């Protein structure tokens, strides 16, 4: 299966691919000649239409996987599935993907979208420290934006607030390999950000 991954960093891509391979039960190939990169959240959203069109017109992809961090934005909720929220990043990405794909009726590849709450480092931390889950983050958010927690998260995961790209990549790979040993538990604790990604991938 040939997939493209649109995420916020090379490390994210490594982890997402390991997770996707585990869910799909196969070893995916990257569908694009160049790895897709974006410059953080706004760029993920802004680049998505161009990525979808490019995949449709010039690459033979079977699927596109998109993962972004939620940062301090509202979490995706189950009821958004029937009425999308304008503030929820998962809903924004889904809407953009649907809009673009509706203009490309012949597009054959599938799209799976996930949101790491509050950042993908929470996923990496989960196998060794399960205190920061979507549920606990929802409580934190109740008292307003929490950039302090997100910064500490990096330190907890990498041992420094300023990890090198090499360190990030290695940590992402190690953590993703640990996560796939109990994906069910992981999905239980990240039901609204990782859950939709896993469900979409299972439907491919």
């Amino acid at each position, binding site marked *: 299966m040939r997939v493209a991954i649109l995420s916020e960093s090379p490390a994210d891509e490594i982890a997402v691919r390991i997770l996707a391979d585990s869910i799909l039960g196969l070893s995916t190939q990257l569908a694009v000649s160049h790895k*897709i990169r974006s410059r953080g959240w706004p760029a993920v959203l802004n680049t998505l239409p161009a990525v979808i069109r490019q995949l449709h*017109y010039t690459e033979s992809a079977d699927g596109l996987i998109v993962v972004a961090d939620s940062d301090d934005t509202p979490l995706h909720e189950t009821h958004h599935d029937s009425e999308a929220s304008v503030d929820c990043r998962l809903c924004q990405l889904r809407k953009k993907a649907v809009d673009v794909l509706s203009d490309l009726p012949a597009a054959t590849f599938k799209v799976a979208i996930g949101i790491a709450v509050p950042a993908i480092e929470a996923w990496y931390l989960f196998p060794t420290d399960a205190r920061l889950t979507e549920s606990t983050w929802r409580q934190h958010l109740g008292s307003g934006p929490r950039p302090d927690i997100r910064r500490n998260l990096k330190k907890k995961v990498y041992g420094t607030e300023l990890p090198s790209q090499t360190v990030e990549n290695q940590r992402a790979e190690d953590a993703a390999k640990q996560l796939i040993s109990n994906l069910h538990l992981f999905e239980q604790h990240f039901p609204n950000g990782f859950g939709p990604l896993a469900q979409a991938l299972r439907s491919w």
Partner: protein
Amino acid sequence: MFQSIQFKNFKVLREATLQLRPFTLILGPNGSGKSTALQALLALQNLNRFQFSDVASVGAGVVKDVSVTIRWAAPFSECVTVMNWAQDNRKALNYLHEKNRTRLGDEIVIELQRILNGIQVCAFDSEAVIQPVMLTPNATLSPKGMNLPVVLDRLRDQWPERFEAINKEMRQWLPEFDTILFDTPDNGQRSIKLRMKQSGVAIAAKDLSQGTLQALAILTIAYLPDPPRAIGIEEPDRGIHPRLLRQVRDALYRLSYPDQFGEGRAPTQVIATTHSPYFLDLYRDRPEEVVLAEKLDTGARFIPLSSYQHLEEILRDTQLGEAWYSGILGGVPTNS
């Protein structure tokens, strides 16, 4: 003006063709042949600048000959200039009819040589730009930007309206300054200063920022009365604030499309390189001027952005720079 440059076994450009317009912007990863293409222009001026071993591609089989072929645009569109380096160090530079490959007449050859000899390839270096220089008649801006004080001094004396135009434009780019001043650090030498608008204090070139010096060098070239007929500029955006990149583009367009700027002189063909998505954004409506350099396993190639199918649609709601950075258009490092 050049229509294209075709490379065979020239360093990383094993088999590549660079299509050129009056203005061409090349983007690509490090080592993808952007600077190599500009180097080839210098080889045209002096074949002996490079030996076979300097230019022959390495790493994928034995190379026996190297060539660079220039296809000229109108009014010389029937002409090609071919440079060859052979393994035994024989070199040749031929001016030929494109169709039958017979030699061109002397008159045309002299005209083409005159254009080639005027080619300039610049990578401005602030350390060179700040150097005080001896006043010498007809000194031109060096590839690194040396001689800037002398060139500006000559403009002030011989083309005061151009010197004033540079001052005026500089005030738009860098409003904290109001005029270019000259200093004579030693007998017969010139250096430049920029006068602060508010305080009137003159700041010596050595104390100006790298971006300010780069801006000044680009402005100077843009307003020369007799710029080279072709110029390669490495990273004209280097050190310059992204909000000023539109002005940089305008200055380069002044060279390429002089009639659009009220200039009566012949156009200068500009080939610029960049790594800046912000600079690229300015070419959203002019994809024909953008070329993406792409690294291959054993070489590199050039892909005109305008050759992408469905480009308009792909970019419908995405900035060109963002799309390029994302990698979907190519011209990016493969493993990062």
